[in-house]
């Protein structure tokens, strides 16, 4: 029952229901500035609207979910937020990431500063964002709500997993998430990237192994995708000029394309906070459900025309 309630409130936030679940914005609501996108996401999920955010327009264009209200004041870029503007906004708290750690002295003259870790290969990024979320919730006194939203997220992930099993049966396909840069270059999301965490939480294995990298993705020539002969490839849309690649004979000859194990997923941010993993998992599931189970079961057999390397 509690989970259902939490799930409902989560949905309400996602679809931007204005007042549901959030307390009435009274004078006591803390005035918080979020100078990176992960804290923006976390604050919104806690039902707090940040007063000031960095790169608001790009957040609306790239991160999209959860929706950032129009009332948030844009304070410049995430690398160089406008300090003088911040100083004039009468803030109670500034949330930063290590990227701005060297500005701490200046920021602390404006308001108390809290910093939460960002992407690294030394730690599990998903676990860290989860901790960041809880720590921020504790700081603003909304731990209950944080736990509820996380529980709702876990429940939702379980539901997505069930849908995948209902579609594919007992064994799920191995999946790799990519984003095309140009018709010849592709970003492959590897270990400790948020898409990979989403895959793991859905119980999906990785179809292609790349070395570890700082941001969790590597840029590779498109032809390396041909090494994937069993798994499914999901690409993050949009890919302007995609027909150039998708119509080419080379692409049509890729093992996973010939076998129909390729799908596009709707545009989703890949370097966000803890809930970006949920949004990724939802988009990945949606994309995978488009793939007929027969295409994946065939790959399990031995009818692949490609000799394995």
């Amino acid at each position, binding site marked *: 029952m509690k989970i259902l309630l939490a799930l409902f409130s989560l949905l309400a936030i996602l679809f931007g229901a204005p007042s549901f679940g959030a307390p009435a914005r009274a004078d006591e609501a803390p005035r918080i500035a979020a100078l990176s996108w992960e804290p923006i996401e976390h604050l919104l999920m806690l039902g707090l609207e940040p007063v000031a955010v960095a790169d608001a327009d790009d957040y609306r264009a790239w991160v999209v979910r959860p929706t950032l209200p129009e009332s948030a004041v844009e304070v410049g870029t995430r690398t160089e937020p406008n300090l003088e503007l911040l100083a004039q906004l009468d803030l109670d708290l500034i949330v930063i990431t290590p990227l701005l750690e060297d500005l701490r002295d200046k920021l602390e003259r404006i308001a108390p500063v809290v910093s939460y870790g960002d992407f690294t290969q030394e730690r599990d990024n998903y676990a860290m964002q989860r901790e960041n979320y809880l720590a921020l919730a504790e700081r603003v006194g909304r731990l209950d709500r944080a736990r509820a939203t996380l529980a709702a997220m876990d429940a939702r992930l379980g539901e997505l997993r069930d849908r995948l099993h209902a579609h594919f049966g007992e064994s799920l396909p191995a999946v790799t998430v990519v984003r095309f840069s*140009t018709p010849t270059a592709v970003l492959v999301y590897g270990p400790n990237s948020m898409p990979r965490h989403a895959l793991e939480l859905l119980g999906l294995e990785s179809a292609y192994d790349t070395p570890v990298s700082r941001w969790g993705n590597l840029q590779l020539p498109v032809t390396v995708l041909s090494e994937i002969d069993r798994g499914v490839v999901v690409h993050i849309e949009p890919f302007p000029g995609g027909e150039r690649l998708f119509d080419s004979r080379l692409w049509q000859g890729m093992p996973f394309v010939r076998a129909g194990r390729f799908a596009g997923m709707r545009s989703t941010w890949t370097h966000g906070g803890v809930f970006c993993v949920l949004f990724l998992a939802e988009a990945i599931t949606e994309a995978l459900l488009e793939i007929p189970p027969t295409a994946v079961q065939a790959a399990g057999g031995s009818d692949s025309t490609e000799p394995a390397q």
Partner: protein
Amino acid sequence: MQAVATNTAPWKPTHLPGRYLVTLLALGVLAALHLNLGMTHWPLDRWSLRPPPAGTFDALEFGLSVLPRLTMALLVGAALGLSGSVLQRMTQNRLASPMTLGAASGAWLGLTATAVLAPALAATHGHWAALGGALGAVGLALLIAGRNGSAGLPVILAGMALNLLLGAIATAILLVHNQHSRGLFIWGAGDLGQIDWHWVQWLWPKLLVGLVLIALAPRPLTLLQLGGAGARARGLSLWPVMLALFLACLWLTSVAITAVGLIGFIGLITPNLARLCGARTARDELLYSALLGALLLLGADAVTLVLNRWFSELIPSGAAAALIGAPALLWLSRRQLGAEDRQSLALPPGAERLDRRRLAWLLLAGTTVALLGLLLARGPQGWTFGWPSELLWSLRWPRLLAAVAAGCGLAVAGMMLQRLLRNPLASPDILGLTAGATLAVVAAVMLFGAGQMQLIAPIAAFGGSLLVLGLLLVFGRRHRYSPGIMVLVGVSLAALLNTALQIGLTRGQGDALALLGWLAGSTYRVEAGEAIVLSVAVVLLVGISLAFHRALTLVSIGDGVALSRGLDVGRARLALLLLVSLLCAVVTSLLGPVAFLGLLAPHMAALLGARRVVPQLLLAALLGGWLMLVSDWLGRSLLYPLEIPVGLVASILCGLYFLYLLIRHRVA
């Protein structure tokens, strides 16, 4: 390559010299290597000269990716080599090439602007924007250099200045719209990767112009060697022919750039290498340059493929070309730059003297503007007028102080360089001192990550600019500090820097953007302590420079005069150069590169009438600081709440004014 270089059989019209055979042989071997490296599934120890069996993915990859890539490398290499050769013959300038004339940065700006203004158009037709940008930039460079300047250093200097200016504008656009398109950066770094024959089929008919060039260009080019008058005497209508040749060259370069992106250095080095291998006549040089260009780019691309495997990450082909090209260029210039080339660009003459009245007015106007900048600011509720609150002031004064100190320092450094090298276009940015410092910082950030940047940057910047100074001194001594060699170092380093930046941009997200911010010359992160240290250092160094004013005056008149007055010219020059590089290092390590300020402030001082060393130095320093103050205000106010780095504003502001001065002088 060694085999090619040693074979210098004289050209006989009756048969092809041996070096053609050797080059063709090398091309064959390299092609086999390239094909093998290109196959994703072929391990390095499994070499094969047979195409893979039909029906497999390997066969598809071989036919649709690896072979087109090889063809593309050959076509583009030949086109770049040929156009470089014609351009160098035509201008009789060993340093002429599309890259040194500003085409590359023009193309980059064209594409960046299109990508930001019309993203949909950029994805499909962005290449034409690049072509337009390249044409515009080279046209401007030639306009600035004028008819007589195109043969010498002036056109290269103009190209260099354009490279800096257009690059700064492109950076500004990218900083403002920082959620970038990765495809843009890959193209910017030059990627030869292919997925079908589309681009090859697009490119090859357009390169047929090259064959016409090889057939028809040698005669006019040979006549041109006699000089304009001589050529006309032999019945050559000079201007139509020059124009046609020039357009053909730009066409070849532009279509090649359009197909694969920016690939520098091939057009610059190939003709030099061809001459080194013994190509003497125009026809020989053109033909051999085309062949050699193909070989060079194929080699660079083979290196790229090896790097791709090594790092298991996409490395752009243009990067490998530049990594090989920049040192090769320095090596070539060391061997070949003998003749003195003291011509330079001319700026309009200004007032003869600086009288008291004019000075008083200047000071009054300057102070008023500076005060207005302090009092007038944008806030959350719109414009405000009044002294900033204590908190705001504590956030603002360190950056103001740092900007002003940096402006003074760069202006003095530029002024001393111009006097030392007797070259009105000398400045820390054009000579590569800034680029060297920046390059060292970029390399350090790539090695150690952006996290440690605050710690490493000053040390790296200092090391970098000292290294460039060392290079300048080593090369310079041999060539008596000829401006040519100095500028070459600057060109090479700037191109290397650009490449490093492009690689960083194709790879990174956060790191690259942080770097981009630093490269734009930002005072944003300056702490109070750092600002004070910088100002003290600048004041000290400027003070020392003032103490050297007699030596500076004598050296700028001429070595002979200086010697006859009992000055140890060598030692004085060394001391002054050291002073300059120290000034550059302290400023760059804190702010990152700021272009044009060091070039322009001394000229503005001279235009206002400060012609002698001490007044020029003081006025230049004042102007430099003032310009930075104004730039800081503009940077804070123009796109509020977004802040544009002060260095970038100053670069664009000064660059545009500089361009205006040059063009006004040319048109007048």
